[in-house]
């Protein structure tokens, strides 16, 4: 990293950022898996060869030309269900990512701006920061599991619970960045210019302090998919026969142990691939924006 600044390439990059060559089309390939996932989430339920919620053949048929991924112990087509399942988890995770990031940014900014205040506002802000730290220690899956078990699992309730559980991550990132931004000279400049404190927060602190949380969105998305599916796996998520990767894996586990691997392994691999695809695309997007 230090070498790049000293080298001729570094000088050129500093001198003429506008002359950076257009990236070749192949560099966009890194976004392809995530794009495929998005397409699958939208059209998945419409392109399945069989009805994903109906018994279509004998139970536990091995993968063949008719049933590409075989059938599960109830006789439902694993390929159709795996394809159709992309929708539920991706939809929930998208809502949760947007909600948790937005909520986290607002809470983090409030905590960061209010911490050195006196009185009630400072007290609440400091308390919020402590709670954010605590949320780090206790396993999210346990909190989510107990809440969802009591409130029931619909797409809406899962989205709300996961949003609340995942808010601390972006909130902590925003709080730390707010503490840094608060010392910047442009805030003093704006204050001297007569800007009110509330407008200052909105115009100058928010756009700057929100950056780490926005960059972190793909991570939140991955965790949201993982927890939504894990709840399905534990039997507290979206209930079968609605196709959902976690509950499919859960129902396929006993088959897997007796050697009929396809009903658990295919949804598990799709779920893992979906999470890696978004993580890779998110990482690439962040690197691209930073350069």
């Amino acid at each position, binding site marked *: 990293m*230090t070498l790049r600044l000293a080298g001729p390439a570094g000088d050129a990059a500093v001198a003429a950022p506008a002359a950076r060559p257009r990236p070749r089309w192949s560099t966009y390939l890194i976004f392809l898996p995530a794009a495929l996932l998005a397409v699958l989430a939208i059209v998945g339920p419409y392109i399945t060869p069989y009805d994903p919620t109906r018994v279509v053949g004998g139970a536990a048929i091995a993968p063949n030309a008719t049933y590409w991924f075989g059938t599960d112990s109830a006789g439902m087509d694993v390929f159709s269900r795996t394809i159709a399942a992309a929708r539920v988890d991706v939809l929930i995770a998208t809502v949760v990512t947007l909600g948790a990031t937005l909520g986290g940014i607002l809470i983090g900014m409030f905590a960061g701006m209010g911490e050195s205040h006196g009185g009630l506002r400072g007290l609440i802000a400091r308390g919020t920061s402590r709670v954010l730290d605590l949320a780090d*220690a206790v396993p999210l899956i346990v909190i989510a599991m107990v809440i969802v078990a*009591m409130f029931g699992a619909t797409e809406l309730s899962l989205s709300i619970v996961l949003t609340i559980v995942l808010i601390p991550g972006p909130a902590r990132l925003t709080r730390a960045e707010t503490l840094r931004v608060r010392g910047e000279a442009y805030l003093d400049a704006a204050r001297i210019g007569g800007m009110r404190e509330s407008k200052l927060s909105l115009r100058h602190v928010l756009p700057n302090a929100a950056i780490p949380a926005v960059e972190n969105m793909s991570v939140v998305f991955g965790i949201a998919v993982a927890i939504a599916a894990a709840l399905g*796996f534990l039997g507290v998520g979206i209930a079968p026969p609605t196709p959902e990767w976690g509950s499919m894996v859960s129902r396929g586990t006993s088959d897997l142990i007796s050697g009929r691997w396809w009903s658990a*392994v295919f949804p598990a691999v799709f779920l893992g691939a979906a999470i890696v695809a978004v993580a890779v695309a998110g990482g690439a997007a962040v690197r691209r924006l930073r350069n």
Partner: protein
Amino acid sequence: MSALGRQRWWIMRTLALPVHILVFALLAFFLVRLMPGDPVLNFLSDGAASPEDYARVEAALGLDGTLLEQFGRYLVGLAQFDMGNSITSGRPVVDELMLRFPITLQLTVVGLVVTIAAAFAGSYVAAVAPTSIIGRGIRVYARTAGAIPDFVLGVVSIFLFYVLLRIAPPPVGLVGAVETLPEPVTGFSLIDAALVGDWHITGSILAHLALPVLVLVLGYSPLIMKILIISLDEAVDAPSTRFRISTGASRGTVIASIMRRAAPPAVVICGMLFGGLLGGSIVLDQLFSLGGVGQFAVASINANDFPVLQGFLVLTAAVSLVVYLLVDVVNMTLDPRRRPGMVVA
């Protein structure tokens, strides 16, 4: 500064622990009361419940009397480690959980130790041989694999090592079908088996733990490696390293110096990892049917056994927070700048 004043940082931090646990106890208390519908009817889901049944379940759930009375009883019980009785078994929730918690904790602790060892070894290879195939592979893995759910890795590893290669024992329970677990003394089956000198069972438990531990390592080592590789890269490039090489220090000395300078951020992550690993162990408990607290919680969810779920939440939180406190105190001992109220000049 008085002697007490100098010790203030860890005393205050320790005194905060009960308050932190109370936050989760409050959460558990209000969750049952905020539930949509009537928790009592929810439990008596078969419909025709007599008023006596209703009153009995209401009392068992601690839902009789005014909210203030309920809350008072709940807090008094909590102070005496009494979280009520399980509705399904009638036994105290704390006893039921304590019977199973060591099984989950055992997997967590073994997983934590192996994960940390593997992460340091992996990061070392990635930092020392950054262009080798293995080094590159580790870097890619550390960057991308951090979020893959435990049960996905679990299913894939059962498929590979049990179904295909046949080198793992059946992924059901801690011992084979004809073997029995040792009488619980500590509750940690590995220690219990070793205490009575039954090395056959000890080996069997280790063999049955191998896959879940592998899954925890695959799932959680990337979190450490991501941080450690970055700081190792910086430490390798630092003037201190060049100085040591130029003075002709041995390779071992140079590497020890690099590790010592790069380790602190990774140590902080290692401490925070416990909560994640505990969650992972709870999920894997269900996948591998280990009989720990995860399987019990899932069964309690299916039976609408709310007192058990409350206890599960509070106990898991308490264990995590105690470990978090220990890590915090260790970190603050090593690095006084992390102590609260310290002003860094």
